[in-house]
């Protein structure tokens, strides 16, 4: 008889504990059901105007041009060497200095394959003249893969004076 009483007591205790634990969970979900202020989802395409990405966000590599359409790239290919994925290809040319008549190595085209880039930031770190940086753009999808191969130096741009 003792055993049965113990069993029955245990049985009821089990049920009580189970109901209590389930009720605790339901209380928590019930709380969120009634508290809509806690909702954390963002409405992505709608909030595009107010969306602020941190300045370090690595979206794509861009070349910095100032207002005179001048950049700081000397065409040293440090970034090309630093890149693990062959994302960057630099085509150089030789400018002839108008005053001295000396030939000077300069950048012709800075080819950037966004489709290969993994945003590892190693090229930006490697650049000795801070000519390139990571931009905050992130909506990269296009319909044609060839559009992802970009030319980073703007047409007609030239190297800023005094940068070696």
């Amino acid at each position, binding site marked *: 008889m003792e055993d049965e009483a113990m069993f029955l007591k245990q049985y009821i205790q089990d049920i009580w504990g189970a109901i209590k634990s*389930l009720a605790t969970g*339901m209380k928590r979900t019930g709380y969120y*059901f009634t508290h809509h202020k806690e*909702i954390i*989802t963002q409405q992505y395409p709608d909030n595009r105007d107010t969306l602020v990405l941190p300045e370090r966000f690595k979206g794509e590599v861009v070349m910095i041009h100032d207002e005179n359409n001048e950049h700081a790239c000397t065409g040293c290919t440090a970034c090309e060497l630093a890149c693990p994925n062959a994302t960057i290809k630099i085509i150089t040319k030789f400018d002839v200095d108008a005053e001295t008549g000396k030939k000077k190595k300069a950048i012709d085209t800075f080819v950037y394959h966004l489709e290969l880039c993994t945003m590892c930031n190693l090229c930006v770190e490697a650049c000795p003249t801070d000519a390139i940086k990571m931009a905050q753009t992130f909506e990269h999808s296009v319909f044609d893969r060839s559009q992802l191969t970009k030319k980073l130096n703007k047409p007609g741009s030239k190297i800023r004076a005094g940068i070696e």
Partner: protein
Amino acid sequence: MWSLSNIAANIDQWLNANMSPTWALIVEMVIAGVAVIGLFAALGLVLVIMERKVSAWIQIRLGPNRVGPKGMLQSLADTLKLLVKEGMTPGGADKLLFNVAPFVAMIVAMLLLAPIAFAKDFQLWDLNIGVLYISAVSSISVISILMAGWASNNKYSLLGAMRSGAQIVSYELSAGLAVLAIVVLTGSLRISDIIQAQENGWWLFKGHIPVIIAFIIFIIAVTAETNRAPFDLAEAESELTAGFHTEYSGMKFALFFLAEYVNVFIVCAIGATLFLGGWMPFHIGNWHAFNGVMDWIPSSVWFFGKTFFLIFVIMWFRWTFPRLRIDQLLNLEWKYLLPISMFNLLLVTLIAIMGWHF
């Protein structure tokens, strides 16, 4: 006063006045058929958007909010999407069973609508064994699942079907015993009698703790019977991908989906009828002013209000609890729910015989 039963009576009168009785009956049948189909479709749309909104708010999300005002037409868009999906039949499947299974599921769900009282005097068939009819017909639903699972020629489906076979038949027992508690108290199997017996108070409040226990057992058992989480082992998503309807697509899948939701509605409607007084308004003893206000609310609103509250509770379960394991599921039934509900029935009988209820 405006009510569903008045409208029905008016239509009946008008038809009988203008046509021969046979034609009037046929037209009435057509109207009834169209009405239940409409109810079916509407229930599907409403319950799906309700499920999605409830889950979203519980999960600190917004939920669907693009189609229609506040996303309320989302399920309509989903239906349209399902309509243009190709209905596939897998190569090795048993074609006949595979295609018949959704029909069976729908017929069972539809048949269960017959004895439900949607409002005062508004009932398709008030048969004298209403409760027995419900428990008998609802047992057939397991056949559609077994058919679907077996015919698919898919191992996940087969496992899901087997699981739900063991599960539904087991939980049928405690659901039946919980229903019997009310039958004992009322002394009748007729749905209208059961509702009438709750004129001065719902059984949940009149019948002391045993009825509350019966109510809890009923809710648990019907959650399991309709294969809803945490008892959704038949379609346990993380184990059997989609269980018995893995191979179903397009409209055939939609029919299963719809049947599941309508089943949820029906069991909740039965729960509301048996324990919460069906369309009976909420009355408190001698507060005549209060009772008058309550009476003013249409009876159909009372019925749907109670039913949807129970549906909400079942959804609340789903979005809170993890799933049980198959042996635990059967343990719960055979070691806890069944003995408790048997013992509980004795207590209810004692209360009923001694007249201890209010």
